[in-house]
């Protein structure tokens, strides 16, 4: 590869032109390593002499070969890249099961106050009393909204919360000499994380079939219960968008069999402030602060998954937790009694606690309940507008905050759920969740959230109806090969998996440092 005087490649090696624009405002952006080099830097730092190094011979000898960018170059690279993403702020994002609601910027502003962002998890607790009070206040809100006895704040995501909740259940059973319970019941419609979590802890997973109407049958649960069963992991509202009508009977049956009720709280947005899961008999439930309480999804995390616990499980909460002491608030950092230890370093996702509490204080009890009701209203509105043209696998109940269609309406058209989703991209919408839950064929799970106006919902429904009409009318041009207007056409996922290329590799020798 030829280099210019700064030692930078004159070609990118991919045939891509650095300044190429595919279309107005849609950049084709080379990799950082094709733009930058090892001499450029966007940070001014003094060069220092180290008279006697204390590295003891462990100093670096191997090459780093790390590309750098000056500040304007970095700004342009990341702004251009960002424009290749769909986002909530940019458009409707009805991804079922993910609760893509508006992320208020007040939350971001508060999280960046030096009193929250610039405090260390291990500085003396006397210097972080405000942080501990915030954790207590957040806990109070979560416990009140769920009517539960305790909360463990530390899990870093929903799946991490599931792990903690199931660990607590395991610890509670072992404490009463029932460690032999090795089976966890998981309905077929569950998120993949549920069986994965149970298996992670050494449990055998037993699937509970769904009823024809999309809900879990208490008699199927009763049939599956035995002295070997440790718990049921049930999502409520479930992943078909339905509130489990027999949830209280299921809880009673589970408890009677000496097992616990783990509730997957991924869909809490449908019922926050309207129904308290503690009143339904749950023993543990994680709450995704990044779904229900608007902390940003950030392109895939960081999340936060605090777990509320019933009185039975409260003694098994992990450390750390906050309690009142003589000299103010204390942080209990070491296992006392039956607590199950520590599931992450430090005290959890403080940055997310700040955002979530800011959101809760903004809404208040009344606003949270209204948000849940509007989320349910919006999903039912979409259902009402689309049900004539789309196929509803479970028409018996009103849907909650998300509505599930299957692909029966596409039978014989040659158009698949995937094609349909990709065609939506060309219309400017993020597709719904596809092919989940697994209990219906070609699932399309649509979750509008409360953040969307009637106008947006109408636009979306108009487009959906129009697409359905074209699919049924044999006008498949909108579907074949869609998307056509996105930054990329369909990507070859098989190739990515068969010949994994997981990092950029330098194809030419490292250029010599310019002296």
């Amino acid at each position, binding site marked *: 590869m030829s280099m210019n005087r700064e030692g930078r490649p004159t070609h990118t090696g991919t045939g891509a032109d650095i300044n190429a624009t595919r279309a107005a405002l849609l950049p084709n952006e080379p990799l950082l*390593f094709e733009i930058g080099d090892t001499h*450029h830097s966007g*940070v001014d730092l003094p060069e220092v002499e180290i008279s006697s190094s204390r590295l003891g011979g*462990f*100093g670096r000898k191997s090459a780093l070969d*790390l590309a*750098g960018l000056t500040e304007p170059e*970095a700004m342009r690279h990341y702004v251009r890249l960002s424009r*290749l993403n769909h*986002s909530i702020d940019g458009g409707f994002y009805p991804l079922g099961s993910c609760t893509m609601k508006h*992320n208020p910027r*007040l939350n*971001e502003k*508060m999280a*960046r106050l*030096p*009193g929250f*962002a610039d*405090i260390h998890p291990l500085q*003396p607790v006397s210097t972080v009393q405000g942080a501990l009070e915030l954790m207590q206040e957040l806990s109070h809100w979560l416990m*009140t909204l769920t009517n539960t006895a305790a909360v463990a704040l530390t899990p870093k995501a929903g799946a991490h919360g599931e792990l903690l909740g199931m*660990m607590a259940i*395991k*610890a509670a059973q072992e404490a009463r000499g029932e460690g032999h319970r090795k089976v966890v019941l998981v309905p077929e419609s569950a998120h993949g*994380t549920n069986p994965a979590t149970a*298996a992670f802890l050494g449990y055998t*997973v037993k699937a509970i079939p769904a009823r024809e109407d999309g809900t879990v049958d208490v008699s199927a649960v009763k049939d599956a219960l035995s002295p070997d069963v440790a718990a049921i992991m049930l999502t409520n509202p479930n992943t078909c968008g339905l*509130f489990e009508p027999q*949830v*209280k009977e299921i809880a009673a049956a589970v408890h009677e069999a000496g097992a616990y009720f783990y509730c997957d709280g991924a869909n809490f947005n449908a019922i926050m402030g*309207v*129904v*308290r899961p503690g009143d339904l008999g749950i023993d543990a439930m994680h709450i995704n602060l990044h779904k229900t309480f608007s902390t*940003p*999804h950030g*392109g895939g*995390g*960081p999340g936060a998954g605090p777990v509320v616990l019933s009185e039975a499980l409260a003694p098994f909460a*992990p450390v750390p937790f906050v309690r009142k002491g003589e000299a103010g608030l204390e942080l209990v950092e070491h296992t006392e009694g039956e607590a199950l*230890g*520590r599931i992450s*370093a*430090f005290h959890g996702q*403080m*940055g997310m606690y700040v955002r979530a509490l800011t959101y809760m*204080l903004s*809404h*208040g009890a009344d606003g949270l309940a209204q948000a849940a009701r*509007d989320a*349910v209203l919006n999903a039912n*509105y979409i259902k009402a507008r689309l049900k004539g043209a789309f196929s509803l696998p479970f028409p018996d109940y*009103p849907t*909650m905050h998300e509505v599930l269609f299957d692909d029966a309406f596409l039978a014989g058209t040659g158009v698949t759920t995937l094609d349909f*989703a990709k065609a939506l991209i060309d219309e400017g919408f993020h597709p719904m969740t596809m092919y989940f839950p697994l209990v219906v064929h070609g699932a399309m799970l649509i979750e509008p959230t409360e*953040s969307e*106006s*009637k106008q947006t919902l109408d636009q979306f429904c108009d487009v959906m109806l129009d697409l359905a009409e074209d699919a049924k009318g044999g006008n498949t041009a909108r579907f074949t090969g869609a998307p056509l207007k996105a930054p*990329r*056409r369909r990507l070859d996922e098989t190739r990515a998996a068969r010949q994994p290329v*997981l990092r950029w590799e330098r194809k030419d020798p490292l250029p010599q440092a310019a002296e």
Partner: protein
Amino acid sequence: MRYLPHSEAERAEMLAVIGVDSIGALFSAVPDGALLKGPVDLPSHSPEFLVEARMRALAARNRAAGDGPFFVGAGAYRHHVPATVDHLIQRSEWLTAYTPYQPEISQGTLQMLFEFQTQVAKITGMEVANASLYDGSTGTAEAVLMARRLTRRNKIILSGGLHPHYRDVVKAYLKDDPDLVCLSASPEGQGDILDRIDEATAAIVVQTPDFYGHLRNVKTAADAAHAKGALLIVVVTEVVSLGLIEAPGALGADIVVAEGQSIGNALNFGGPYVGLMATKKEFIRQMPGRLCGETVDAKGERGFVLTLSTREQHIRREKATSNICTNSGLCALAFSIHMALLGEAGFTRLARLNHARACALADALEEVPGVELLNKTFFNEMTIRLTRPGAEVVEALARKGILAGVPVSRLVPDDPAVTNLVVLAATELTTHDDIAALAAGLKEVLA
């Protein structure tokens, strides 16, 4: 309510389309008595300025690291984050996107993750890296489980220099597992791990710089592990050290786990942070977490997708490598932008600056009567033994406005050998005045 778009008239219109009288009717599946009659017992909605006032009042009751001399480290480090990083990560297209499930409209996030994976692989000296994990501590537990899957052996040995929280997390993940061996704290950098490796050992876990600041010999550990067919997991809690210290991958590490907070991310009282995990190419199918890979689109143009998802829970369910369903996307973005701004030149200079400040700190501490420095080697962090319990001294210095470090007893309780120890870190933000203030304060408190 400022976040809810509907007017009452619009709600009524929508209900008419649905064909019900009230939103309450949509909750008909909720069992009798479970539907609340009114709001729960919490305050009502509040204007933005009042929420802000409440949050500011809470923040004001915390002492920020920037408020005075600050030497607290032990797994989380105060570094300067360029303003560009925080501006960029707050762009809507980064902040309010989700997991790139639809790659055609997520190429920004996907290309960034590909670049991130490359950066992590390069600094650790490994062949491949994943798209990030929750943090370094949970990453360590995941690495231990990965090593078990790879070797089909069970015994895991944790070095006494491993961060005590990381050790505790591994212990919680492997609750009551008889094959987990946790060596006792080694504040002097002493090691006994190599003699403990046997043919049943899946992996040993060694941190460098270790919790007490000592640099550990990765090469010797790798050779000893490999001689018995075991794997070496190297943990790095201060990722800036990799600018100056030899990459674990170049010394034979099989899996490297790091806490990436130091680059691009604020202290945040402990989270969110970003876990880095890198390994050898031959091990990727047992690696947990998301992976981004390069491919082409239907027109043959380069593009990126999440790949090898047959390892993951949404496909494999109870047979997945892990239950992990997310990464730490925005923190990984912050890491990647900061690392791109640094580049090799900046990253190396930043590491040198950290080491220089730590050398100055060590020199000053050794001058204080009653202070004994335990480290012969260090990067930017070190352990001192005092003539009094470390917790008392740290508390006394906090009252003087100096945050002097972490008393080891806070993390390792009930071990008399560590009662008088304090771990201190210096970074590029540590000034000579800070060091002088600490030395003077220590002199007074210990006198």
